[in-house]
């Protein structure tokens, strides 16, 4: 039975502000988690723990008693951090989502990047900000990497399609490879489309007719 689900630290403990931070990164994606951990180590001598599995998150967090929790917005575990402990026992001090009361730009930047931070009540915001800033930067970097990887994959598959379309034209219309590509390019230009789109239409049509 887990009673003190979100009771991570007693209030008024001065060492909570002086001691090194304990940061928990909740992320099922190992590569992204590594990138974030790597970044955080440059900010602080923080102790960092990564949790990948979302089931049992509350229990694990209660045992770890972190100061800051970083969690991806697409992680369903965010709702597990919701303020439910207080509903069962109003004396417990909850962990709350970090919001700088005076300025919502950071919150907005975090949501854009796809990350949120939860902090133990009483943690000074100047200790949280550099951690969250680093997480935002790393989330952006990871998204860029993923996007680049996707683009490379797409480009590779586009090249395959164009090669197949060229092959079809060479065979059916006895064209050279250069002539086949020139025909694809001209058709694309005439129709205001990309070469890959014309190639894909041709390949699909050929598949349907074969």
């Amino acid at each position, binding site marked *: 039975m887990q009673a003190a689900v979100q009771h991570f630290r007693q209030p008024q403990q001065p060492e909570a502000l002086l001691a090194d931070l304990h940061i928990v990164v909740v992320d099922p994606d190992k590569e992204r988690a590594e990138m974030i951990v790597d970044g955080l180590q440059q900010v602080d001598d923080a102790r960092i723990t990564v949790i990948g599995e*979302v089931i049992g998150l509350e229990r694990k967090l209660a045992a770890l008693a972190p100061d800051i929790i970083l969690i991806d917005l697409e992680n*369903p575990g965010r*709702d*597990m951090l*919701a303020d*439910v402990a207080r509903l*069962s026992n109003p004396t417990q001090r909850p962990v709350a989502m970090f919001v700088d009361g005076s300025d*919502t730009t950071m*919150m907005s930047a975090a*949501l854009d990047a796809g990350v949120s931070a939860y902090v133990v009540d009483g943690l000074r915001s100047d200790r949280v900000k550099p951690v969250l800033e680093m997480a935002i930067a790393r989330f952006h970097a990871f998204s860029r990497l993923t996007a680049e990887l996707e683009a490379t994959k797409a480009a590779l598959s586009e090249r395959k399609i164009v090669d197949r379309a060229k092959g079809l034209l060479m065979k059916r219309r006895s064209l050279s490879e250069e002539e086949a590509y020139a025909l694809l390019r001209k058709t694309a230009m005439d129709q205001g489309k990309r070469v890959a789109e014309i190639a894909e239409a041709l390949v699909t049509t050929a598949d349907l007719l074969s």
Partner: protein
Amino acid sequence: MTLDHVPCGFIPLTDSAVLVAAVEMGFAAAEGIALDLKREASWSNIRDRIAMGVYPVAHMLSPMAVSMSLGLGPLPVRIDAPFVMNQNGNVLTARAEIAAHLADLGATPRDPAATGAALRALTRRSLLRIGVPFPHSMHLLLTRYLLEASGADLSRVTFAVAPPPILPDMMRAGEVDAFMVGEPWGSLAVERGDACILLPGQAIWAAAPEKVLGTRRDWIEDHPDVARRLLRAMHRAAKWCSDAGSASVLAEILAMPHYVNAPADLIQRGLDGQIVLNSQGDLLTVPGFARFGGGAVNFPWRSAGMWIADQAAQAWGIPKRQAQTVAHDAFRSDLYRLALAQLDPMLPAASMKVEGSLQSETLARAVSGEVPLGPDSFFDARVFEFDA
């Protein structure tokens, strides 16, 4: 015609039906609205993205509209509920061995009082962990109401939170003993063979406002015409969803990967009110298991909002009177009237009612003629009357 683009977050649940039908059956487009539905991973995301203005409107737990308007949560923003998307549609589900134990203690899905008494008896012997999808939810309020009214000691019960699709996994992993969740996630747990449905949520309160169209108040003020057309589209979609003849098409649409992403036959159980209770296949027919429209189902009774405030204020640490005033103002029956005056002649004449007094369908005075109101009784026959 250019359409007005309205982004809207939703959680994969059968009760996203009215939003999904508004898009898929063309009701939104017919009102000149491109309703852009975005599936979200958590209620926290819905809360934060509507607060940051990413969404002007969203699929929302009714108590969230009240709690957000009260300033609870990271970013306070005034949220209105001008439309109730559905009444009920939840099930209280337990691990098979817990359910068997409760049955020995007299629990039966046909009798909420007997099930409540069995839960009280169980909590005397052992602690009970119950999963709910969000702290600010009807799930939590109705489960607590059932336990409290049955005389159970609430200090023997802890609540854990996880989004609906995760709750069956939480139970399987032994993190909770039971959970209250919107369909089809209770039926999915039953289908996996390790869970039994204890009670339909409707048995606790027959007219519980489950989800609302959560709407930023400043957006309504800035876009009164779009808001009005959106409510008209929702009204038509709700009418379509509540037609029994739509159920199989609706189940197929909701089953799609980008909506609920669950088998259509499981979704259909909740739409038909034909609930498979356990892996033995015992069937419970529940008239009004989930109501999507018709009568005054979508009407945001100010008194229903006040019931939420009445039940939640203490847990939220807010004076009851203040919570009730904010809830009364958030359930925007005035906007509902304004938008649907031409479309729906059977608008209720009143905006408040005594909650819990109707045992069966009853005709009430409408703006023009009469409107049938469905049963709204509580399992313990309590009646709630609030002052505006």
